[in-house]
């Protein structure tokens, strides 16, 4: 069975700092192939038979966990699902203890979600097995960025030179950080936009602005982020109506972007906050497509991190 092999990959997807463009393109290309598997009557392939993938969620997120677990099952991997609140971790058992317990169960790869930046990094250092970051604090959510890039390319083709506007709470957004990293690697020009109090001082790869018009003007695509209500409690935002007045993506404002510019949202969405209600269901919205593509991306990531690397 001689067959061309793909370039070698990092054994983790913690963020994109250890990834190059060729490796990312390979993931996106494999995801394309996984789309075909998902269109079959039997949506399952035996590729990861005998592998065990653990989803370790220290922060609850049913959608992301289900997407990873279904992806693993469609690849015939066994799935071990471990969910715990970090509050109970801090009481006694450390992350390291928890992961060591799982390690004894013969896990081949770990999908980790946690509310604090860096835990996936630490876990990789302890486990020496593939670790996939399913979201760590405000830092990174690389599979979300991959599925966003994949969804954008389905609609726009190459992202080279394309202007992508990301709108919302940039400061606290792992989605914004990972997208800024990935989309710029793929040649896009990222403009991040939000209220001054919700913008970081800098975001590598991206231009920052508080002007929605500046961000949306001639944009090839627009991505709205989820607004966490607790930002109001922390005094970073005066009120929801204030946010809506300045930053809600409406039909009218979307007209500043290029005609039929696709609209993305990582979900879950606060209807009538980030987006004007009807927009989410308009043909410009790729929100449902993002969810569908999420599975293909996660299958591709599992394939590349697990196949050929078993020890």
């Amino acid at each position, binding site marked *: *069975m001689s*067959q*061309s092999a793909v370039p070698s*990959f990092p054994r983790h997807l913690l963020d994109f700092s250890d990834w190059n463009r060729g490796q990312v393109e390979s993931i996106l290309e494999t995801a394309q192939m996984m789309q*075909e598997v998902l269109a*079959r*009557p039997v949506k399952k*392939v035996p590729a990861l038979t005998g592998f065990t993938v653990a989803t370790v969620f220290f922060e609850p997120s049913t959608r992301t966990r289900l997407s990873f677990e279904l992806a693993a099952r469609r690849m015939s991997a066994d799935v071990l699902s471990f969910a715990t609140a970090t509050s109970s971790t801090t009481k006694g058992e450390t992350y390291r203890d928890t992961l060591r317990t799982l390690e004894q169960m013969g896990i081949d790869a770990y999908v980790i979600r946690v509310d604090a930046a860096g835990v996936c990094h630490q876990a990789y250092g302890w486990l020496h097995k593939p670790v996939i970051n399913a979201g760590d604090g405000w830092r990174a959510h690389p599979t979300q960025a991959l599925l966003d890039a994949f969804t954008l390319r389905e609609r726009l083709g190459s992202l080279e030179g394309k202007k992508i506007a990301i709108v919302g709470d940039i400061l606290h957004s792992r989605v914004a950080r990972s997208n800024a990293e990935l989309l710029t690697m793929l040649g896009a020009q990222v403009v991040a936009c939000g209220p001054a109090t919700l913008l970081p001082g800098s975001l590598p790869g991206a231009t920052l602005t508080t002007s929605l018009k500046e961000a949306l003007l001639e944009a090839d695509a627009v991505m709205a982020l989820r607004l966490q209500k607790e930002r109001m409690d922390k005094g970073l935002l005066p009120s929801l109506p204030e946010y809506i007045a300045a930053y809600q993506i409406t039909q009218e404002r979307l007209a500043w972007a290029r005609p039929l510019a696709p609209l993305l949202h990582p979900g879950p969405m606060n209807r009538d906050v980030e987006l004007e209600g009807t927009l989410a269901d308009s043909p410009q919205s790729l929100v449902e497509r993002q969810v569908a593509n999420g599975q293909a991306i996660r299958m591709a990531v599992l*394939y590349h991190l697990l*196949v050929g690397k078993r020890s």
Partner: protein
Amino acid sequence: MKFKSRLLGDDEVRRALTRIAHEVVEKNKGTEGLCFVGIHTRGISLAKRLVDLVEKFEGKQAPMGILDITLYRDDLSEIGLQPRVRETRIPFDLNGKAVVLVDDVLYTGRTARAALDALIDLGRPSRIYLAVLVDRGHRELPIRADFVGKNLPTSKSEVVKVKTLEDDGEDAVELWELEGA
């Protein structure tokens, strides 16, 4: 790898494919329900030739698909190997069809096994045939080909390379020796 000899030239390849095309039509008693599925990479080029030859003889173009068996390989957990996943495209309904799976070389039988599993996940053909340009022996699974261009006894330290006009610029079958074997 070291080149040893040229086993078949372009005329011989053409003649072998022509014979297979005739045999397929004969075995299937015409082109009714007949379709071809080529296995990446050279199986696709060979399947295309067979489709053209059948059309030339019978005046009817059989549908054709392409198959990647990567996700069905039984050696994916081996260290160091990470094959590229390629396109699978079967642009027609497989149910009730007589499928001719086309590959360049039949060797251990593992590719054919994977291809059969993949095909069965894609639909329920009434019949699956296996057509190969070269059968070089050394089977590891109970699999045989229905149509063989040429039986070539080889040793395990040898590699049989099929070249096609589409992929390599010429039609040929070559024998190579594994270095250090």
